[in-house]
Each structure stands twice: as C-alpha cells, then as structure tokens.
C-alpha cells in the first residue's frame, strides 16, 4: 500500500477532451472544481459543431479550440502538450460526457503521487461495479486485455478506460508520440514496453449524461478486429526510451 502523503493539487492539470459536449460540460467542470479546486482544468474543444467552446468560455475555463476534429487521441495529446509546457507535473484525462465520476479524482491522483505510478487507470472491472457494460463492449475489452497480456505479460483489466492520470515521466514521452488511432490500449502497450509502471484503481463510472456515444455496434466489431491487430503491428516498432533523466 502506498504511504499516504499530502498531495499538492496545484501540480495537477485536468484535461477534458470534449466533442459536442455542450450539454454536459458545465456540470462536469463544476463537479471537478468542487472536488479539486486547486487543480487547473483545460477543456480541449475537439472541433465541436455545437456550442461547446462558448460554454467553456462562459465558465471561464482554459479552452483550447481545435480548428478541426482530431479524435480523442489528438485531443488528449493537445492537453498533455498544454500541461507539459505550463509546468504541470501530472495530467489527468476526464471525459467531458460525465461518465467519469469526479469523486474518484482524488483517489486516482493520490495513488499516482504516493505510489509513484506512471499511468494510473480508473478501472471499472477490478471490483464488481454498478456500471453495466454491454455484451459487445465487454467482449471487445476482454479481447484487448488478452492481446495486451500476450504482448506485454501484464494484465490490464480496463484497457479502454479514459479516466487516467499521467505521471511526470510519461508526459514528455507522450507529448512526443501519442497513439492516435486507438489511444487508450495502444498507449498502455507503449508505456509497458518502455518499462513504465501502470496501476489500475477501482472506480465507478456513470452512463453518458448527454451527447451521442461515438461507438456504435458496427464500429465496435471493427474495433474488436483492428485494435488487437494494431497492438501486434505496434510490437514490430522498436520502442526507445528517450527520457532525458
């Protein structure tokens, strides 16, 4: 068990990737601020066609408006660039759709800091969760998890969770090269291959509050086939740790 030290929340930058999340953004932002008032929040408006940018401006939150839609990988990498250039030691990804319960931000961050974990993942599948996962999605996540196990010999139960804390060692690595096609599972494989420490922490997730899920069933089947293949193809690339220290 990590020793419980007092953690400094001003070192944390919370990245909210938001694509057409005008309906839930204000609620998500306020809930985060209530939990961690000292943390910096940055919204990455990923080329939304609704008024996500205006909602963010009204809230007075730092908002990076991307001129075109890059997808979740490109948005999170933008947030990591922001965190890195502004001197934040830790960055946390919290989705703008309200699925990630801000109550768990402190728990995730404390695990990252006290346990010196490089990537802390909020996981739905470590303990029995109230979150109901559809059959197709569950099957997909099991396939991805098994592929990661084959590739790295490490078992990551919730490899598609976007509720994650990036530590000071991995931020510069991911600023340089962040997987853009299937960012969550691919970044796990990348960091494990580079020898970084990854830990899962049990969290509860909610159903989406507004907006439309970007993953429909046909896409889910496509992902089930292409993510394992992509992970295996990734294994062909040599991973070199460019960490300066």
């Amino acid at each position, binding site marked *: 068990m990590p020793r419980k030290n007092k953690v400094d929340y001003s070192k944390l930058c919370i990245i909210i990737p938001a694509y057409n999340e005008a309906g839930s953004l204000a609620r998500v932002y306020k809930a985060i601020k209530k939990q961690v008032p000292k943390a910096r929040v940055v919204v990455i408006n990923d080329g939304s066609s609704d008024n996500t940018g205006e909602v963010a401006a009204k809230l007075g939150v*730092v908002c*990076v408006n*991307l*001129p075109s839609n*890059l997808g979740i990988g*490109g948005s999170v*990498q*933008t947030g990591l660039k922001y965190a890195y250039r502004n001197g934040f030691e830790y960055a946390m990804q919290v989705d703008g759709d309200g699925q990630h319960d801000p109550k768990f931000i402190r728990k995730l961050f404390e695990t990252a800091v006290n346990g010196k974990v490089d990537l802390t993942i909020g996981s739905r599948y470590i303990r029995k969760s109230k979150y109901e996962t559809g059959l197709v999605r569950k099957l997909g996540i099991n396939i991805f998890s098994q592929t990661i196990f084959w590739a790295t010999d490490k078992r990551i139960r919730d490899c598609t969770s976007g509720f994650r804390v990036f530590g000071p060692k991995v931020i510069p690595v991911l600023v340089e090269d962040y997987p*853009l096609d299937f960012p969550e599972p691919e970044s796990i494989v990348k960091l494990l291959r580079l020898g970084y420490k990854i830990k899962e922490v049990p969290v509860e997730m909610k159903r989406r509050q507004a907006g439309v899920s970007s993953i429909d069933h046909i896409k889910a089947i496509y992902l089930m086939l292409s993510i394992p293949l992509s992970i295996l193809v990734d294994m062909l690339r040599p991973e070199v740790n460019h960490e300066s220290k």
Partner: protein
Amino acid sequence: MNPSEMVGNSTISYQTQWLAIVACLVFLGMVVYLIKNNRLKPGHAVVWMFFGVGLLLVSVFSDLLNTVSMVTGIYYPPAAFFVVAIGALVLVLVHFSIIISRQEKQIVNLVQELGLIQADGKRVKRGKTSNK
C-alpha cells in the same frame, strides 16, 4: 488475327503495340503537363515517370515481355505484363500510404499547435485587459 501482323515472336499485334506506345506517351505528357502547371510536385511525379517509362519500354520492346514471362515461368506473356503492372501499382500505393501517414502526423501537430497558440493568445489578451 493474321500471324503476319504479330510483332516478331510476340503475342502482341502491331496495332496493340502502337496503341500501347501512344497511351504511354499521352500518360507521360500528362505527367509533364501537371508538373508544368504546378499541380503535381516533381517528387511525386518521379514515381509516375518511372511507371510511364517502364510501360513505354515494355510497349516498344515487346520481346521484353516474352523474356519476363519465360524467366518467371508465366505461360501467357500478357499475364506477365499484368503481374509487373499490378506489382508496380502496389509499390506506388505503399509509397503514397507512407506520404499520407507522414502528412496525417503533420496535420495533427499543426491543428494542435494552432489551438494552443490561440488559447495562449486569448490568455495574454485577457491578462493585458485585466491589468489596465
């Protein structure tokens, strides 16, 4: 088809050969035209030039096709032509996939930097206004 109309020992008729030569010349002319009009970067055009010149050589020296088919053991020489042409096209496609992958990375980087610069600019502007 009258065998006397065939080119040497080849299975290609003179008519087909001339058609192929004219088609290759038109293709090469089109590539040169696109370069002159700045619609095709010379770097990319080189690939198509190689492709066009290769096809032209096969059209002019049609015995080349017989040699290729003999060496590769392909019984029907025109089939050898398709093998070579499809192989060349696949290489061209891989070449363009490489370019697209590189450009995708560059575009993502540009979009990210533009967003970050604009956010920085807004923050500086807000800071200046609040200092007044």
